[in-house]
Structure formats: structure tokens, C-alpha cells
């Protein structure tokens, strides 16, 4: 009895995997489907400022949301936002719950095996942040300053390599204590990811922190189901146009406090 149930389950599971595999390599019809029903499902983060987050008016906002809205507008369809999380966004795309992932998605070889990527639309970066009153133009200007960083992160490694020896690197155990040290002005500077810094500044406007120096760049791409070439081409067209007319630059300045820089095409 038990074995029967098990084999039934296995059969069901295999079936499910096969269906998944077949949808993953679906016919190239998403663009037509989107245009036909006049709406596009966009997977965005709802808790990742400044990329995708709830604004004070309980509406989704951020670089990702603005970019996603732009794509829907250019396609002439309604934007339907679907909140996604980091672990579930790719499965959502593969199972057609969403048509595009627009949630601070970075490109890596593992992901390239299962989904396609458009051109980059926004920067994502690790950087040094500090108060407006502090003049920091290069790594040499960090001499004699103090900086909070989370131990063992990319930021920690990069700082270790590029900073002058007189920079006092104060290491904390997690992002929240690192940010707390900076907010309570126990350190003059903060080295962290753009999203963490933006959230910290948003909640503590009194610190007047701004972007100072770049530590590491890893831009965001929009994820498209494998094989949806028509949709991919169309979105790339829209993004390239938005890059050319300065729209993406404007979004980046507005939410990240820094230009897009050179985005990989």
C-alpha cells in the first residue's frame, strides 16, 4: 500500500517536472499573449528599497517598479505587479506566474542556464557612504577616518585591499549593527550594499548620508523565460531607448543617488 502511494507520488512528481520542463521551453508566444490580454505580469520585490518597496502611500515604488511600469506603458498594456522574493522569483517566471522578473536580479552562469536576460537597466553596487559634510573624492581621502563594515563581506575584502592603512575599519557582525554604528555616528562612514544604505538613509534622514566611493559593481538585468525571443527583443528595444533618452539615468539618480554608469548591453 505504502509502496503504491509512493510510486503514484513519484509518477505525479515526474509528470510535474516534465510539464515544468516543457513550459520552460515554451513556444515563443508570450509577447502575443501579453498584447492579446492587454496586461503583463511583472515580478517585483516589495521589500527591497530602493529597487522595489512599499512607499508611504502603500503603493509599490522604486527603480525596478518604475522600469517595469515603463515597459508596460511602452507595450501599451496594463502593468500587473506580482510581489516576488529572491528564492521564488525564477520558479514564478518558469511556471508563467509572471512574464518578467524586474527585482534587482543579477546575472550569473547558473541563472543563465535556466532563464534569459535582457540588457542591464540599473546599477547595483557596494559602496562607501558618508555624510554630505565629509569631503571624500578618492580612497586616499579615507585616511584617518573610521568606517563601519560587516565582517567577511565583499565590502570588507575590497576595503582591506584599497583603503589607506590609517583608515580605521570597524567590523560588525551583521548589516543592522553595522548600520546602527554609522547612524549613531560611532563611525564616520559606512561601507555596504546600495539597498541597505538606501533603506538606512530613508529611515534616518537626519544623518544626511550620500554615496561617496564605489567598491564593487554588479548591475541588474530583467529576467525572461528561456526561448521567449520576441518578448526579449521587444524589452531590449524599450530599455535601449530608455537608456538613450536618459530615462534610466533619471531613475537611478532619483532612487540610488548616483548615475547608472556604464551598463553592460
Amino acid at each position, binding site marked *: 500500500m505504502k509502496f503504491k502511494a509512493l510510486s503514484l507520488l513519484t509518477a505525479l512528481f515526474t509528470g510535474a517536472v516534465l510539464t515544468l520542463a516543457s513550459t520552460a521551453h515554451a513556444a515563443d508566444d508570450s509577447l502575443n499573449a501579453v498584447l492579446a490580454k492587454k496586461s503583463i505580469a511583472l515580478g517585483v520585490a516589495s521589500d527591497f528599497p530602493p529597487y522595489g518597496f512599499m512607499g508611504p502611500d502603500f503603493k509599490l515604488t522604486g527603480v525596478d517598479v518604475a522600469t517595469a511600469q515603463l515597459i508596460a506603458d511602452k507595450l501599451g498594456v496594463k502593468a500587473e505587479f506580482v510581489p516576488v522574493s529572491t528564492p521564488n522569483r525564477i520558479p514564478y517566471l518558469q511556471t508563467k506566474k509572471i512574464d518578467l522578473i524586474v527585482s534587482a536580479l543579477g546575472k550569473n552562469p547558473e541563472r543563465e542556464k535556466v532563464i534569459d536576460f535582457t540588457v542591464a537597466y540599473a546599477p547595483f553596487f557596494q559602496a562607501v557612504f558618508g555624510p554630505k559634510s565629509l569631503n571624500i573624492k578618492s580612497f586616499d581621502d579615507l585616511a584617518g577616518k573610521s568606517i563601519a563594515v560587516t565582517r567577511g563581506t565583499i565590502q570588507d575584502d575590497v576595503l582591506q585591499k584599497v583603503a589607506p592603512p590609517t583608515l580605521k575599519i*570597524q567590523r560588525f*557582525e551583521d548589516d543592522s549593527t553595522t548600520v546602527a554604528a554609522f547612524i549613531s555616528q*560611532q563611525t564616520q562612514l559606512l561601507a555596504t550594499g546600495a539597498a541597505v544604505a538606501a533603506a538606512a538613509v530613508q529611515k534616518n534622514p537626519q544623518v544626511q548620508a550620500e554615496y561617496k566611493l564605489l567598491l564593487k559593481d554588479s548591475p541588474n538585468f530583467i529576467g525572461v523565460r528561456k526561448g521567449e525571443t520576441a518578448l526579449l527583443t521587444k524589452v531590449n528595444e524599450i530599455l535601449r531607448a530608455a537608456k538613450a533618452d536618459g530615462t534610466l539615468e533619471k531613475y537611478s539618480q532619483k532612487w540610488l543617488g548616483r548615475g547608472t554608469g556604464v551598463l553592460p548591453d
Partner: protein
Amino acid sequence: MIEFDFAVVLAEWPMLLRGLGLTVTLTAVSAVLGALLGTACAWARLHGGKGLKRTVGTYVEIVRNTPFIIQLFFIFFGLPSLGLRLSVEVACILAMVLNLGAYACEIVRAGLQTTPKGQLEAALSLALTPWQIFSRVVLPPALARVWPALVSQIIIVMLGSAVCGQISAEELSQAANLISSRTFRSFESYIVVALIYLLLAVGLRQLLFWFGPRFIFTSR
């Protein structure tokens, strides 16, 4: 089977040595100041005025009923919003002194309260001043009675200084954390540091048991 590689951890010995130095410094300063604070508070709880008694009592209860790490975070992250910004090392010492002070207060008070009545009466009949009675007659034997407990408490505070790494003090445990995140040899790092703490604690106990009877109170 895990393969140990202590060489990469021990290669970072300058960092371990610096960490050890800070841990010893933090402990030494806070042990002296904390014990003094504890003794003063014990006196205040027994002989102080009503207000003083209540103030010291509140301090002791707050410290003894909250976690050390929260006290440390309060001093380091909280006080700056009240306008008091302390360096990492000063914040650590302040937290450790306040912590030890509260526990030492209760330990010393226990010692003071077990002073035999006859001893007090003898001192009074010799027309000694209250300060002379406290410092010459009551305190030394009281400290001798509670010395083992006090030494244990100082060692607990020394071991507790391991959390100072959380506010970026580069003491021994922070050194271990850094070494483990650089070499990815966490097991080895923590074994090495645990051994250092063990030796430190045993050594400190020996030192204080030697030091106390000779310099703090003279047992005859």
C-alpha cells in the same frame, strides 16, 4: 573525518596577540574599577542614606537583570543619541565596569553583613571613627571571606568581554572571528582561541589568589 589545519590559523598570530592584548587590558582596567565600584556600592547599600540606598539598589537590579550584550549596545549605540559618544574601548570598559560593579556590590555586601557583632563592638570601644572601622576592621576580613566569589566574578567578566567584538572592539574573540572569515578555518580558530581563554582564566585565578591575601587583605 575533519582535517585540521592549525598552521593557517597560527600564521595569523599577530592578530591573536593584539586581540589578547586588548582582552587583558579591558579585563585589568575593569576588574580594578569594577571591584572599587562594587565595594563603594556595598558600603552605600548598608550605610548610605535612604536616597543613596535606593539609587544603588536600582542600579544593581537593572544591571543584574539585563543581558550584558544589551548593556553594551545601550552604551555604544544608544548613548550617542543622548549626546554621549564613547570610543569602542571606553564603551567596552564602561559596560564591563558597570556590570562587574553591580555583581561585586552584592558579593562584597554579603561579606560585610557576616561581620560578627563583637568585632564591631570592639572597634567602637576603641573609639575608632566610622571610616576607620569600615576600612580597617570590617572590610579586610569581609573581602577575605568573599574573595573566591569575587575572583570568579572577575573571570566571568573577562570571558564576557568576548561579546565586545560585537561593537567592533578587536579583542580575542573578534580576532578569532576575523581569522575564521579570512581562512575559512573556523573550527581551528575557535579551538585556538578557546585554549587561550582557558589559559587566561586559569592564570588570572592563580594570580588573584596569590595577590589577594598579600595586598588586598592580610590573612594571618
